């Protein structure tokens, strides 16, 4: 176990831990396949809109409209 680090970077002979270069690259491929599958989905509309909304000049996002700044609405509902 103590040697894993150097084994991983030397990557010539598999050690007892079994981390051959093949296995390393297989793990890497699977990891990226999983990850890239999501990346390829791009930006869902909800996030594009969220960022756009927050950017509109002077427009406080509607996200928290209920939350406040309505002084004269006090106690109405």
């Amino acid at each position, binding site marked *: 176990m103590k040697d*894993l*680090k150097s084994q*991983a970077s030397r990557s010539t002979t598999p050690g007892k*831990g*079994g*981390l*051959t270069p*093949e*296995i*390393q*690259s*297989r*793990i*890497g*491929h*699977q*990891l*990226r*396949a*999983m*990850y*890239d*599958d*999501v*990346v*390829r*989905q*791009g*930006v*869902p509309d*909800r*996030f*594009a809109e*969220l*960022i756009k909304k*927050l*950017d509109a000049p002077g427009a406080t996002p509607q*996200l928290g409209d209920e939350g406040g700044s309505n002084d004269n609405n006090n106690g109405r509902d």
Partner: protein
Amino acid sequence: MPLTDSLRNDILAAVPSLRAFAISLSGNADRADDLVQETLLRALANIDSFQPGSNLPAWLFTILRNLFRSDYRKRRREVEDAEGNYAKTLKTQPSQNAHLEFEEFRTALDKLPQDQREALILVGASGFSYEDAASICGCAVGTIKSRVNRARSKLAALLYVDGAEDFGPDETVRAVIGGSGG
């Protein structure tokens, strides 16, 4: 810095990989998107504290990672949900075998300690340097390196124990990526 057009575009451009990171961490697509949403809101609310010229993706990943961590402590139960939910996020349905292998991989990934999992994802999938990954996780570079190595060993042990020769090393991957299996 103020929220300029170009900064906004950069944030938008980081969304796909933020989602991938969130899904890889949580194993749950719905929860991942909630995490991304909250990350964006935090980022935009704190945009003044972003240093112009510094690494924007790393900054965003740090926010997401910290949110996930605090959230995770509150509810560690939902992990069991991961498999079914994750499959739904796939656009292309891999062939049956590849799909199984894929779920196996996902399950093995979920078994890693969180420290190791996030380090492996940041370095092995998001493509961050060890240095950036260390700053995202708030630890030393050497710590990240050893977490990544331990994560790999553990995955190898979980997935390929003694059986590495049973499969062609690339068969699964090819099938997952290309859906070319029969």
